[in-house]
């Protein structure tokens, strides 16, 4: 049976999350269970359990959380966030944790790929000739294949 040991505990992890936009209210959690009970993902895949994730963060289990697969399972449906009696923005909290994970070098290939596509083309699905033809055939107005201004915007920002 698994056990959480003192060396897994980072006292400042909760603070780190609370400092990230969306994570502010994490410490208000009462662990009442409203979030998990209503979570459509949790019902299908018990690996995802918002209340447990929050408890892990509050306990300071930094590596376990950031390296996990479960933080990527939130479907961002906001059901929990709408209901949380303490105003914990659970969906936004998951985004915050994901951002931290990415910064610390953990992120599923799919997620990285999406971001890369957008950085490069300004669109998740750059339109190719095939798409243009299809649109024309369907009588839809033409659209640029990609939006290079987006790439510029992100570059100037990262500078």
């Amino acid at each position, binding site marked *: 049976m698994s056990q959480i040991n003192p060396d897994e505990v980072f006292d400042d992890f909760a603070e780190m999350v609370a400092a990230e936009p969306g994570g502010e209210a994490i410490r208000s959690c009462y662990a009442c269970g409203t979030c998990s009970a209503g979570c*459509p993902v949790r019902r299908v895949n018990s690996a995802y359990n918002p209340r447990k994730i929050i408890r892990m963060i509050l306990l300071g289990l930094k590596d376990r959380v950031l390296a996990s697969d479960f933080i990527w*399972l939130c*479907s961002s449906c*906001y*059901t929990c966030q*709408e209901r949380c009696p303490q105003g914990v923005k659970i969906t936004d909290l998951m985004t915050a944790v994901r951002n931290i994970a990415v910064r610390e070098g953990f992120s599923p290939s799919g997620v990285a790929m999406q971001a890369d596509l957008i950085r490069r083309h*300004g669109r998740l*699905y750059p339109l190719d000739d095939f798409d243009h033809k299809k649109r024309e055939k369907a009588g839809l107005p033409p*659209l640029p294949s990609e*939006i290079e201004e987006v790439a510029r915007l992100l570059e100037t920002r990262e500078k």
Partner: protein
Amino acid sequence: MNRYAFFLGCTIPARSRNYEMSARAVAKRLGLEIVDIADFGCCGFPMKATDQAAAGLLAARNLALAEAAGMDICTLCSACTSMLSEEAHRLAHDAGHLAEANRHLAGIGRSCSGTARVRHFARVLIEDVGLDRIRESITVDLKGLPVAIHYGCHYLKPSEIYPGWDDPEAPKSIERILEAIGARPVAYAGEKDCCGGAVLVADEDTALGMAKGKLDHVKAAGAKTLCVVCPFCSVMYDDNQKSIENKFETRYQIPVLFLPQIMGLAMGVDRKELGLNMNVVKTKQLTGEILGQDE
């Protein structure tokens, strides 16, 4: 007459042209002028997980374009709706954030004041067109076609960015539209459940499992079609219906129609113009029943 900056986002122009086509068709019939702004790019939503600040900036850029064009934004994709609305909400309520956004936008010679308004197509229909005009536009009697509504999540939530809009716990907006066009919304268990679209990237099994639950309930409720207002939801229920049927060894054959596709039918718009032939689950039989003919 109302003009709107028509925001398609990434998925619709490439993957859900039937949604775009039907929306344009319905808009035309209801006298909504929708204007295409070529420079619109990704709303930012897909970047949120990696870098929410960057995502917000992408949204701000689109908002800046709409402001420059002097128009409200009308969206079709719920994810775009929430991403853009959330950013608009922040820009309008957080001066520091507005300044920060403009600092970056300046780099590409753009700026925003946080005044852009973002609304989903369905909301525009209810608030600006009105149910009466929609009723008047009806030429085909849907004879109480039993429709299951999937509102989806971002169309309603987070509610704080949609002041004055529908109640996420007991939504009514689409129901009202469908009733206005002579369809019969059918209640079913798990009506508010998420399609799972956003999980598809991370874990297909979970995503499909979520979609399956919904399809089971819809089938049990005896609905003839499932009505959606977001391309992601459509991907889960329409594009993936077959793989769900195979994966779980079951059978649904439930046509999944975008709201404007159903509306178009009621307005007597031709199947092709509504892109009904592009839906993955065949819609012929359904439309045949509605139009009282077997094509």
